[in-house]
Every structure is written in C-alpha cells, then in structure tokens.
C-alpha cells in the first residue's frame, strides 16, 4: 500500500524489468538456491523411484495383455487364489523368523566380539562380516550344493551319525527352514556390525555404575545395554525387515519357490506370475502388496525412535 502511495505516475518501471527483478530476487533467496542444488538428485529419484512406482500402480490396473483397464480386477483375482494367501503367510513367517534370529545372533555375536581384546578384534570383525560381503547369488549357490539331497556335505556328515538323508529343499518344512537359515547366515553380520557400533557407544562408566549399583550381567544388559541400543535395534530391525520381506535371490536360487510353492515369498512369486507366467500386471499387483505391510511396520518402529530419539 505504501508503495502505491509514493509511486508517481509515469515513473513506474516497464513490466519486463519488474519480471527480471523478481527472478533476480527469487534466485537470491536461500531456499531457491537450496532447491536448485538438490534438483539433480530430486530428478534422479523421480526417475528411478517415483516413476516406476506409479508405473507399477498403472500396470496393476491392466489386464494380462496390458490392453484393457480392469481397475481392481487383478487384486480381486488374487484374493480368490489360495496360493496368494499362502505367499502372504510365507512372506510373513520368512521375514519375521529370519529377522528375529538375525537380531538375536547378531546381538550375541556382537557381545562376544565386543569383549575380544582390541588387538584381535579387527580380525574377527572382518571374518564375521564375510557372509554379508559375498554377493548372495554366489553364496547361495554354495548353500545349494551343501543342501543337495544325495552328495552334500550336510547329509554326508549326518549319515555318518546315522541320521538322514534329509530332503533339505524337497520337503516343505525343511525347505522353509533352509531358506530362512541361509537368509539368517547372510544377514546376521549386518546386525552384528550395527550392534557392535551401538555397544561401543555405550560409555563404560554406565556399566561400572551399574556394577556398583548391584546389577548382575543380565541386569546390566536389560537395564543399561538394551535401553541404550534401543534406537539402533529399532532402525536395524526395520531396515532388515524391509530387505528380508523383499528378498528375492536366496529363495529364487535355493528353491525357486518350491516344493509346490511352499517357499514362495512376494518377490519370487511376483517374478513367477509376472515374468515366467507372462502376466506382468498380475506380478505388479503381487509386489504392490508389500507396500502397505511395510508402511505399517515403518510407522510403528519409527514413531518409537522419534519418541526416544532425544534422550541421550
């Protein structure tokens, strides 16, 4: 308003000059500069994440030949199939069991490594990380041979004690056990290294204070270690849950979903119906099912992290 009062007729600047000035001002604002600098990354994420996500949403609404829009038709079809519910069940069992064991083993091993004198610790840390460093497609092949029903090292050793042979990948229960075992073997070192870092960040004096307060080793873990590691445990678990839920390579190589679909999880079954069964829209619908399940888990776990985040 004041602007309008002081401005004299005929002194007003031409429109193009004003436009340039506002562009100039916009460029001078910090937020604009920040936006421009992050733009390449935003574009990359849009290209690699947002576009495929929306494309798969679009795909899921088409018919098998991808010619006709069918709305929720694919989902209705899935809900009526027993195999789908089997896959839901198996994915949950697979992810939850594997993550629980990875977390437990990682926690215990992290404690052992933490208590090794500093000199030898590097060596052990390095060796224990090996399963996580080898590309899983390769290491799973080695496991495949170990699980071979007739000539494998496992069954040979067991036969020596008069046990077996065990149909590691041939029987539904054993096959489920096998894929979970390999996933735990592959993922536990990640937990170990995260927990080890968390353990190292707990000040020694807290343990000393607890020792003087009268806590035994179990109480020290329960009242000091676990509360101090809470956030790391939550984030690691969430991260691992997502990765394990979306696992593909281990199951694909070890059992390819068999026997009789009894080890299929979302990703492998999506591949089976989408790529091998040439029904891309149905495959997209299957893989989309992981989103709501993981979103709910993420909300719950991250809410807890936020709540406790500023304690230390």
């Amino acid at each position, binding site marked *: 308003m004041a602007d309008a009062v002081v401005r004299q007729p005929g002194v007003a600047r031409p429109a193009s000059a004003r436009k340039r000035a506002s562009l100039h001002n916009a460029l001078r604002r910090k937020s604009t500069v920040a936006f421009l600098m992050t733009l390449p990354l935003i574009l990359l994420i849009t290209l690699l994440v947002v576009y495929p996500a929306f494309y798969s949403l679009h795909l899921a609404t088409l018919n098998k030949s991808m010619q006709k829009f069918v709305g929720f038709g694919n989902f209705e079809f899935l809900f009526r199939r027993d195999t789908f519910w089997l896959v839901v069940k198996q994915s949950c069992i697979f992810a939850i069991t594997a993550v629980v064991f990875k977390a437990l083993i990682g926690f215990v091993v992290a404690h052992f490594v933490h208590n090794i004198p500093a000199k030898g610790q590097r060596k052990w840390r390095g060796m224990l990380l090996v399963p996580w460093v080898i590309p899983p497609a390769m290491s799973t092949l080695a496991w495949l041979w170990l699980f071979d029903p007739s000539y494998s090292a496992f069954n040979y050793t067991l036969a020596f004690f008069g046990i077996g042979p065990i149909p590691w990948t041939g029987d539904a229960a054993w096959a489920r056990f096998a894929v979970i075992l390999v996933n735990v073997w592959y993922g536990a070192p990640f937990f170990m290294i995260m927990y080890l870092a968390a353990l190292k960040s707990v*000040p020694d*004096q*807290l343990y*000393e*204070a*607890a*020792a*003087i*307060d*009268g*806590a*035994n080793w179990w*109480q020290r873990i329960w*009242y*000091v270690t676990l*509360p*101090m590691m*809470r956030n790391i445990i939550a984030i690691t678990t969430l991260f691992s849950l997502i990765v394990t839920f979306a696992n593909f390579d281990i199951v694909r190589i070890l059992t390819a979903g068999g026997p009789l679909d009894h080890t299929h999880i979302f990703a492998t079954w999506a591949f089976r119906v989408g790529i091998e069964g040439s029904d891309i829209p149905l495959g997209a619908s299957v893989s989309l099912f992981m989103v709501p399940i993981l979103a709910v888990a993420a909300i719950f776990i991250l809410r807890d992290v936020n709540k*406790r985040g*500023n*304690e*230390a």
Partner: protein
Amino acid sequence: MADVSLRKVVKRYDDVEAVRGIDLDIADHEFIVLVGPSGCGKSTTLRMIAGLEDISDGDIMIGGDIVNDVPPKDRDIAMVFQNYALYPHMTVAENMSFGLRLKHYPKAEIKARVTEAARLLDITDLIDRKPKQLSGGQRQRVAMGRAIVRNPKVFLFDEPLSNLDAKLRVQMRIEIKKVHQKVRTTTVYVTHDQVEAMTLADRVVVMNKGKIEQIGTPNELYHKPATRFVAGFIGSPAMNFIPCRLEDVGGTLQIRLTDRLAFPLPPARAARYNALPRTDKLLLGLRPEHLTEWHAHLAPGVETFDTVLDVTEPMGMETLVYFGLEGTPVCGRVDPNAGAKDGAPMRLAMDLNNMHLLNEETGVVL
C-alpha cells in the same frame, strides 16, 4: 560406615606398574583426598577400592574384611564418576533408586530415601526429569544423590568436579563438604586439583609415580612438606626452589644464594641445619608469600635484597612479582600498593623463618 585399609597394594598392567605398593589407613567418617598429577595412580587406587580393577598384589580391607575378590556390588560402596554416569533413559528418581530397586527394597522405603536425598541436595523439583534436561551441576548432584540413597559404607569420588566450570566447581566443593558434614560417611576423593584437596580433606594423600609421597592434614602438607614433589605440588603459585649452599662466616651459619647474595640463618634454623655438610648441593624452598615488599621495621630472620622485576601480575588483593636469581625464576607476593612495576627495580624481603631446605639430589626436605 567403615574404615578402609590398603596394605602394600600393587597394580600392574603388563610391564607397567601403575600403583607400586601403597599403604593407607582411612579412619571411619574420615574424608581422604588422593591428589597428584595425571598418571600418578590415584584413580587406579580408587578403582581398586571400588572393585572395578583387580589388584595385582596386596590387600584391601573395608570394615576389617579383606575385599580383594569381592565384586563391586558386594563391597557396599557408592561411587560418583567424573562424567556422572547417569542412566540417560531413567528419570532422576529412577537413577537414584536403581541400586535399591535391584536389591528389592520396599517401595515406601525407596521413596523415603530418594525424597530425603533429594531434599539434602536441593533437587526435589528435578526428580521427574531425565539427565538430558539437567545442567552439569544438577547432574553431579543427582550422581551424589544416587550414592547417598544407598547409605553405603564408603563414598568414592573420581574427579567429580572436573567437568564443571570454575564457578560451579567452587560451589559444588562447598556442597560436597556440607553433605559430608551431614552424612559423615567415610569418603575417598580423587582429584588432580590441589585446591580441592586442601579445602575438602581431613587428610590429603599426595601421590606421585604410583607411590605415596606424603600423607597429612592440609596444613601439614603446606607447612611441612616432606619432599620437593609435595612442596612444589601443594600451593599456588608453587614454592620457589633456589639453588644454594651453606657456609660458616665468623661463627654464624649463612645461606649463600648467589655470589653477591648471602643471608645469616635465624638461630632456630641454624641449629637445625648446622650438622649438614657444607659441600652438599641444596635448594632453598620459599613460598611466594614469604617473599614480600620491604618494610622499615622487619622482624628478626627477615632479610632484604634488591632486584629488578621481570613481570608483575596484579591479582587485586595482591600482586605477584617475577624476577630471576642467577637464572632461577622466582615468584613473590607483594601488596598491590607497593609500587611493583614490570622491569622496575624493587627492594624485597625474604622471610627465612619459613624457609625449607632441600637436598637437590634426593629431593628430601631437610
């Protein structure tokens, strides 16, 4: 409440001896301060009393019982750490009551003890806060509260004030003294700050290189140090050490500081040092407050000399003057109105009644 005894206690780390045979008797209710430079073994000694470090040799007794192999939780001690070591996920009340809860005390008693300790330390309003929401001084109070509620036989303090700023440190020092006057628990307190040691302790233990240099009341250590280390460590600014020798001139014993500077010793000192060989290399130990400005009427045993000041430091209630005696830097304390100026000549008085004489080689005060 209990007495604490250390008998020839040794701590070895591989090849290094951190504590080299310590004997110490701490009476019931006593406030003992272990003081010394960093690496002298004072914290290690405290941690051995706490049971946080194994002892390599010797015995530690609390209340007459040997506790060498007793774990910390069964020694009935409480410890206050330098970084407070409060459990960050617990409130103040939970922190303070943690030890009692582990021992399954009745809820009512826990509450009563925590309330009483909080009142004593003036932290009643903070009882539901988490450590993160407290200032350094408040955290230290909570750490002390955690020790008090346990009502232990012995309090152990490991440099509890090092993380506080200078003003708060003075304040907390007084708080600690007040608390000890009220609860009277036997206390072992470790610090590298000799002022803390002097102000808090019933008796001070000066440690150096893993050994005890001297044990005594603050006044004893200040006025009758046994070694050069103690003489130099206790007191600020530190005691001056001036190379000197004894000589007989016309039947009186003289102390010669430089070619041109020699003073007759006061009769009491002369009698004490008369038997010393005149050839020994000696050090004159003199505290800055015994090097003052010159007065017209000087007491017997106070000698004057002229010097040129290098630097002066006005402190308000006094001025510190620095000058050299044949290359040895010397510090004196003069009245702020005595007219001391940088680079100016000044006549000073040396009070030989309060002198110390040390053997330069052995460092023993003679």
